[in-house]
Protein backbone atom coordinates (compact mmCIF):
# COMPACT_ATOMS: atom_id res chain seq x y z
CA UNK A 1 0.00 0.00 0.00
CA UNK A 2 2.77 2.39 1.08
CA UNK A 3 4.86 1.39 -1.92
CA UNK A 4 1.92 2.11 -4.17
CA UNK A 5 1.37 5.57 -2.75
CA UNK A 6 5.07 6.41 -2.35
CA UNK A 7 5.13 8.38 -5.57
CA UNK A 8 2.16 10.51 -4.51
CA UNK A 9 3.63 11.11 -1.06
CA UNK A 10 6.85 12.38 -2.67
CA UNK A 11 4.95 14.64 -5.03
CA UNK A 12 2.83 16.00 -2.18
CA UNK A 13 5.96 16.63 -0.03
CA UNK A 14 7.71 18.45 -2.87
CA UNK A 15 4.60 20.51 -3.53
CA UNK A 16 4.35 21.52 0.13
CA UNK A 17 8.05 22.41 0.21
CA UNK A 18 7.67 24.53 -2.93
CA UNK A 19 4.72 26.37 -1.41
CA UNK A 20 6.74 27.03 1.77
CA UNK A 21 9.74 28.27 -0.24
CA UNK A 22 7.57 30.60 -2.36
CA UNK A 23 5.81 31.85 0.78
CA UNK A 24 9.13 32.50 2.56
CA UNK A 25 10.52 34.26 -0.51
CA UNK A 26 7.49 36.51 -0.65
CA UNK A 27 7.80 37.30 3.05
CA UNK A 28 11.50 38.03 2.63
CA UNK A 29 10.77 40.22 -0.37
CA UNK A 30 8.12 42.11 1.64
CA UNK A 31 10.63 42.61 4.43
CA UNK A 32 13.22 43.99 2.00
CA UNK A 33 10.61 46.37 0.58
CA UNK A 34 9.68 47.54 4.09
CA UNK A 35 13.33 48.13 5.05
CA UNK A 36 13.95 49.86 1.71
CA UNK A 37 10.91 52.08 2.21
CA UNK A 38 12.45 53.12 5.52
CA UNK A 39 15.61 54.15 3.66
CA UNK A 40 13.46 56.06 1.17
CA UNK A 41 11.77 57.94 4.03
CA UNK A 42 15.15 58.78 5.56
CA UNK A 43 16.46 60.11 2.25
CA UNK A 44 13.31 62.20 1.73
CA UNK A 45 13.40 63.49 5.31
CA UNK A 46 17.05 64.48 4.97
CA UNK A 47 16.41 66.31 1.66
CA UNK A 48 13.41 68.08 3.20
CA UNK A 49 15.38 69.04 6.32
CA UNK A 50 18.30 70.39 4.32
CA UNK A 51 16.04 72.31 1.96
CA UNK A 52 14.26 73.83 4.96
CA UNK A 53 17.69 74.67 6.33
CA UNK A 54 17.72 77.45 3.80
CA UNK A 55 20.04 80.37 4.10
CA UNK A 56 22.77 80.41 6.77
CA UNK A 57 21.95 84.10 7.28
CA UNK A 58 18.58 83.00 8.67
CA UNK A 59 20.37 81.08 11.43
CA UNK A 60 22.83 83.89 12.00
CA UNK A 61 19.88 86.25 12.60
CA UNK A 62 18.02 83.64 14.67
CA UNK A 63 21.05 83.02 16.87
CA UNK A 64 21.33 86.71 17.61
CA UNK A 65 17.88 86.58 19.19
CA UNK A 66 17.19 85.56 22.79
CA UNK A 67 15.58 82.18 22.03
CA UNK A 68 17.74 81.53 18.96
CA UNK A 69 19.81 78.76 20.48
CA UNK A 70 16.69 76.79 21.45
CA UNK A 71 15.28 77.10 17.93
CA UNK A 72 18.57 75.89 16.47
CA UNK A 73 18.82 72.96 18.90
CA UNK A 74 15.34 71.76 17.87
CA UNK A 75 16.45 71.82 14.26
CA UNK A 76 19.74 70.09 15.04
CA UNK A 77 18.17 67.32 17.09
CA UNK A 78 16.26 66.29 13.97
CA UNK A 79 19.47 66.46 11.94
CA UNK A 80 21.36 64.38 14.52
CA UNK A 81 18.58 61.79 14.60
CA UNK A 82 18.72 61.45 10.83
CA UNK A 83 22.51 61.35 10.99
CA UNK A 84 22.26 58.44 13.42
CA UNK A 85 19.89 56.57 11.07
CA UNK A 86 22.31 56.94 8.16
CA UNK A 87 25.23 55.94 10.40
CA UNK A 88 23.51 52.62 10.98
CA UNK A 89 23.37 51.90 7.25
CA UNK A 90 25.97 49.94 5.35
CA UNK A 91 29.38 50.82 3.99
CA UNK A 92 29.68 54.01 2.05
CA UNK A 93 26.10 55.17 2.64
CA UNK A 94 26.97 55.85 6.27
CA UNK A 95 29.26 58.65 5.10
CA UNK A 96 26.03 60.64 4.59
CA UNK A 97 25.35 60.18 8.31
CA UNK A 98 28.88 61.27 9.14
CA UNK A 99 28.40 64.46 7.11
CA UNK A 100 25.00 65.16 8.68
CA UNK A 101 26.62 64.89 12.11
CA UNK A 102 29.46 67.17 11.02
CA UNK A 103 26.94 69.66 9.66
CA UNK A 104 25.19 69.70 13.06
CA UNK A 105 28.59 70.28 14.72
CA UNK A 106 29.32 73.13 12.32
CA UNK A 107 26.01 74.79 13.29
CA UNK A 108 26.90 74.42 16.98
CA UNK A 109 30.31 75.98 16.32
CA UNK A 110 28.56 78.81 14.48
CA UNK A 111 26.33 79.36 17.51
CA UNK A 112 29.32 79.44 19.88
CA UNK A 113 31.19 81.94 17.70
CA UNK A 114 28.15 84.22 17.38
CA UNK A 115 27.54 83.98 21.11
CA UNK A 116 31.17 84.91 21.85
CA UNK A 117 31.17 87.72 19.31
CA UNK A 118 33.82 86.00 17.21
CA UNK A 119 34.15 85.76 13.44
CA UNK A 120 31.83 83.13 11.98
CA UNK A 121 32.31 83.59 8.23
CA UNK A 122 34.31 80.35 7.95
CA UNK A 123 31.53 78.45 9.76
CA UNK A 124 28.94 79.80 7.36
CA UNK A 125 31.09 78.80 4.38
CA UNK A 126 31.56 75.26 5.71
CA UNK A 127 27.84 74.90 6.39
CA UNK A 128 26.92 75.96 2.87
CA UNK A 129 29.53 73.63 1.35
CA UNK A 130 28.54 70.65 3.47
CA UNK A 131 24.83 71.20 3.01
CA UNK A 132 25.18 71.55 -0.78
CA UNK A 133 27.19 68.33 -0.92
CA UNK A 134 24.58 66.45 1.10
CA UNK A 135 21.66 67.76 -0.94
CA UNK A 136 23.38 66.85 -4.20
CA UNK A 137 24.23 63.31 -3.07
CA UNK A 138 20.80 62.67 -1.54
CA UNK A 139 18.95 63.92 -4.61
CA UNK A 140 21.08 61.75 -6.87
CA UNK A 141 20.49 58.76 -4.59
CA UNK A 142 16.79 59.45 -4.76
CA UNK A 143 16.95 59.66 -8.55
CA UNK A 144 18.55 56.20 -8.70
CA UNK A 145 15.90 54.41 -6.62
CA UNK A 146 12.87 56.64 -7.13
CA UNK A 147 10.15 55.52 -4.76
CA UNK A 148 10.85 51.83 -5.08
CA UNK A 149 11.43 50.30 -1.64
CA UNK A 150 12.98 47.13 -3.00
CA UNK A 151 15.39 49.08 -5.16
CA UNK A 152 16.35 51.22 -2.13
CA UNK A 153 17.08 48.02 -0.21
CA UNK A 154 19.31 46.72 -3.01
CA UNK A 155 21.10 50.05 -3.38
CA UNK A 156 21.57 50.78 0.32
CA UNK A 157 22.69 47.35 1.51
CA UNK A 158 25.28 46.69 -1.17
CA UNK A 159 28.56 48.59 -0.84
CA UNK A 160 29.17 48.10 -4.54
CA UNK A 161 25.81 49.45 -5.69
CA UNK A 162 25.37 52.48 -7.94
CA UNK A 163 24.29 54.59 -4.94
CA UNK A 164 27.18 53.42 -2.75
CA UNK A 165 29.70 54.18 -5.46
CA UNK A 166 28.05 57.54 -6.13
CA UNK A 167 28.30 58.48 -2.44
CA UNK A 168 31.97 57.48 -2.36
CA UNK A 169 32.80 59.30 -5.62
CA UNK A 170 31.09 62.51 -4.51
CA UNK A 171 32.52 62.26 -1.00
CA UNK A 172 36.06 61.92 -2.36
CA UNK A 173 35.51 64.91 -4.63
CA UNK A 174 34.12 66.86 -1.67
CA UNK A 175 37.09 66.18 0.63
CA UNK A 176 39.63 66.76 -2.14
CA UNK A 177 38.11 70.18 -2.83
CA UNK A 178 38.30 70.96 0.88
CA UNK A 179 41.98 70.09 0.96
CA UNK A 180 42.85 72.32 -2.01
Amino acid at each position, binding site marked *: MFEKNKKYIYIATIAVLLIVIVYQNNRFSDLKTAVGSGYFRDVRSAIFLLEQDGDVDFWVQTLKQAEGQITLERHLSEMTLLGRKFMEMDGKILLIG*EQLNLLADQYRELAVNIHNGMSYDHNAEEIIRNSSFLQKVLKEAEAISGENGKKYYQEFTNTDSETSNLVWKEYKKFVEEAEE
Partner: protein
Amino acid sequence: MNYFIRPETDRDIQGIQEVNYLAFNSQENEARLVKLIRTSEYFVPELSLVAVNEDEEIVGHILFSLIHLVTEEGTVPTLGLAPMAVKPGCQNSGIGSSLVSKGLNACKTLGFKHVFVLGHPNFYPRFGFSPASGFGISSPFPVPEEVFMAQELEKGSLTGLKGKIEYPPAFNAVS
Protein backbone atom coordinates in the same frame (compact mmCIF):
# COMPACT_ATOMS: atom_id res chain seq x y z
CA MET B 1 33.58 45.09 -4.18
CA ASN B 2 30.75 44.55 -1.76
CA TYR B 3 31.72 44.47 1.89
CA PHE B 4 30.15 44.84 5.27
CA ILE B 5 31.44 45.81 8.66
CA ARG B 6 30.95 43.87 11.88
CA PRO B 7 32.73 43.30 15.20
CA GLU B 8 35.51 40.71 15.09
CA THR B 9 34.96 37.10 16.11
CA ASP B 10 37.48 34.46 17.19
CA ARG B 11 37.59 33.17 13.61
CA ASP B 12 38.86 36.55 12.36
CA ILE B 13 42.06 36.74 14.39
CA GLN B 14 44.34 35.29 11.72
CA GLY B 15 42.77 37.47 9.00
CA ILE B 16 43.18 40.59 11.13
CA GLN B 17 46.87 39.82 11.66
CA GLU B 18 47.29 39.41 7.90
CA VAL B 19 45.53 42.66 7.01
CA ASN B 20 47.62 44.62 9.51
CA TYR B 21 50.80 42.98 8.26
CA LEU B 22 50.05 43.63 4.60
CA ALA B 23 48.67 47.15 5.04
CA PHE B 24 51.78 48.36 6.82
CA ASN B 25 54.30 47.30 4.17
CA SER B 26 54.78 43.81 5.56
CA GLN B 27 56.02 45.12 8.89
CA GLU B 28 54.92 43.28 11.98
CA ASN B 29 54.54 46.20 14.40
CA GLU B 30 50.82 46.86 13.94
CA ALA B 31 49.91 43.17 13.78
CA ARG B 32 51.82 42.67 17.02
CA LEU B 33 50.16 45.70 18.58
CA VAL B 34 46.71 44.27 17.86
CA LYS B 35 47.78 40.92 19.32
CA LEU B 36 49.13 42.53 22.49
CA ILE B 37 46.07 44.73 23.00
CA ARG B 38 43.71 41.80 22.46
CA THR B 39 45.28 39.89 25.33
CA SER B 40 45.30 42.92 27.62
CA GLU B 41 42.69 44.51 29.89
CA TYR B 42 42.53 47.48 27.49
CA PHE B 43 40.77 45.49 24.78
CA VAL B 44 37.10 46.20 24.05
CA PRO B 45 35.82 43.36 21.80
CA GLU B 46 32.93 45.43 20.41
CA LEU B 47 35.42 48.03 19.21
CA SER B 48 37.53 45.76 17.06
CA LEU B 49 35.70 45.92 13.75
CA VAL B 50 36.41 44.10 10.53
CA ALA B 51 35.36 44.81 6.96
CA VAL B 52 34.67 41.54 5.19
CA ASN B 53 33.91 40.91 1.54
CA GLU B 54 31.34 38.49 0.13
CA ASP B 55 33.79 35.59 0.50
CA GLU B 56 34.14 36.40 4.23
CA GLU B 57 37.70 37.52 3.55
CA ILE B 58 38.89 40.30 5.86
CA VAL B 59 39.78 43.38 3.83
CA GLY B 60 39.96 45.94 6.61
CA HIS B 61 40.27 46.28 10.36
CA ILE B 62 40.00 49.04 12.94
CA LEU B 63 40.69 48.89 16.64
CA PHE B 64 39.73 51.26 19.44
CA SER B 65 41.17 50.38 22.84
CA LEU B 66 41.24 51.86 26.31
CA ILE B 67 43.89 54.48 27.04
CA HIS B 68 44.16 57.10 29.77
CA LEU B 69 44.11 60.83 29.92
CA VAL B 70 46.22 61.95 32.86
CA THR B 71 45.12 65.34 34.22
CA GLU B 72 46.05 67.24 37.37
CA GLU B 73 42.73 66.20 38.88
CA GLY B 74 43.17 62.53 38.12
CA THR B 75 43.13 59.91 35.38
CA VAL B 76 40.28 59.76 32.92
CA PRO B 77 39.67 56.61 30.84
CA THR B 78 39.28 57.29 27.15
CA LEU B 79 39.77 55.55 23.80
CA GLY B 80 42.63 55.41 21.33
CA LEU B 81 42.11 54.59 17.68
CA ALA B 82 44.99 52.39 16.51
CA PRO B 83 45.64 50.75 14.24
CA MET B 84 43.40 51.01 11.19
CA ALA B 85 44.33 48.87 8.23
CA VAL B 86 42.94 48.18 4.77
CA LYS B 87 44.34 45.45 2.57
CA PRO B 88 46.48 46.78 -0.31
CA GLY B 89 44.40 46.53 -3.47
CA CYS B 90 41.27 47.42 -1.56
CA GLN B 91 42.54 50.80 -0.42
CA ASN B 92 41.04 54.07 -1.63
CA SER B 93 37.64 52.49 -2.10
CA GLY B 94 35.83 53.79 0.98
CA ILE B 95 36.57 50.90 3.32
CA GLY B 96 38.81 52.96 5.63
CA SER B 97 36.30 55.80 5.85
CA SER B 98 33.48 53.35 6.52
CA LEU B 99 35.52 51.68 9.27
CA VAL B 100 36.28 54.99 10.97
CA SER B 101 32.63 56.15 10.78
CA LYS B 102 31.20 52.85 11.92
CA GLY B 103 33.84 52.61 14.65
CA LEU B 104 33.13 56.07 16.02
CA ASN B 105 29.44 55.26 16.01
CA ALA B 106 30.12 52.08 17.99
CA CYS B 107 32.21 54.07 20.51
CA LYS B 108 29.29 56.49 20.98
CA THR B 109 26.83 53.65 21.36
CA LEU B 110 28.96 52.14 24.12
CA GLY B 111 28.89 55.48 25.94
CA PHE B 112 32.48 56.60 25.44
CA LYS B 113 32.88 60.35 25.45
CA HIS B 114 36.12 60.98 23.56
CA VAL B 115 38.60 59.36 21.20
CA PHE B 116 42.24 60.09 20.41
CA VAL B 117 44.22 59.21 17.33
CA LEU B 118 47.74 59.61 16.07
CA GLY B 119 47.30 59.79 12.33
CA HIS B 120 47.22 61.65 9.06
CA PRO B 121 46.14 65.27 9.58
CA ASN B 122 44.30 65.30 6.23
CA PHE B 123 42.31 62.14 6.83
CA TYR B 124 40.98 62.14 10.38
CA PRO B 125 39.58 65.71 10.49
CA ARG B 126 36.98 64.51 7.95
CA PHE B 127 35.42 62.55 10.79
CA GLY B 128 35.44 65.39 13.30
CA PHE B 129 38.92 65.00 14.76
CA SER B 130 40.93 68.12 15.55
CA PRO B 131 44.38 68.62 17.10
CA ALA B 132 44.33 67.49 20.75
CA SER B 133 46.49 70.50 21.59
CA GLY B 134 43.36 72.60 21.03
CA PHE B 135 41.89 70.94 24.12
CA GLY B 136 45.14 71.37 26.07
CA ILE B 137 45.97 67.69 25.74
CA SER B 138 49.39 66.49 24.67
CA SER B 139 50.75 63.31 23.17
CA PRO B 140 53.19 61.06 25.01
CA PHE B 141 55.17 60.78 21.77
CA PRO B 142 57.35 63.51 20.25
CA VAL B 143 55.14 64.15 17.20
CA PRO B 144 53.96 67.30 15.39
CA GLU B 145 50.88 68.80 17.09
CA GLU B 146 48.61 68.37 14.06
CA VAL B 147 49.00 64.57 13.89
CA PHE B 148 47.80 63.92 17.42
CA MET B 149 44.06 64.46 17.35
CA ALA B 150 41.01 64.17 19.55
CA GLN B 151 37.28 64.04 19.06
CA GLU B 152 34.56 64.72 21.58
CA LEU B 153 31.84 62.11 21.08
CA GLU B 154 29.79 64.09 23.54
CA LYS B 155 29.98 67.86 23.09
CA GLY B 156 32.07 69.56 25.76
CA SER B 157 33.34 66.30 27.25
CA LEU B 158 36.97 67.39 26.97
CA THR B 159 36.38 70.85 28.35
CA GLY B 160 38.64 71.45 31.33
CA LEU B 161 40.48 68.15 30.95
CA LYS B 162 43.96 69.43 30.28
CA GLY B 163 46.70 66.83 30.48
CA LYS B 164 48.63 64.14 28.71
CA ILE B 165 47.57 60.86 27.13
CA GLU B 166 49.07 57.68 28.47
CA TYR B 167 49.09 54.64 26.19
CA PRO B 168 49.14 51.09 27.59
CA PRO B 169 52.45 49.15 27.63
CA ALA B 170 51.48 47.36 24.39
CA PHE B 171 52.18 50.56 22.48
CA ASN B 172 55.69 50.89 23.92
CA ALA B 173 56.43 47.30 23.02
CA VAL B 174 56.01 48.01 19.33
CA SER B 175 57.11 51.61 18.94
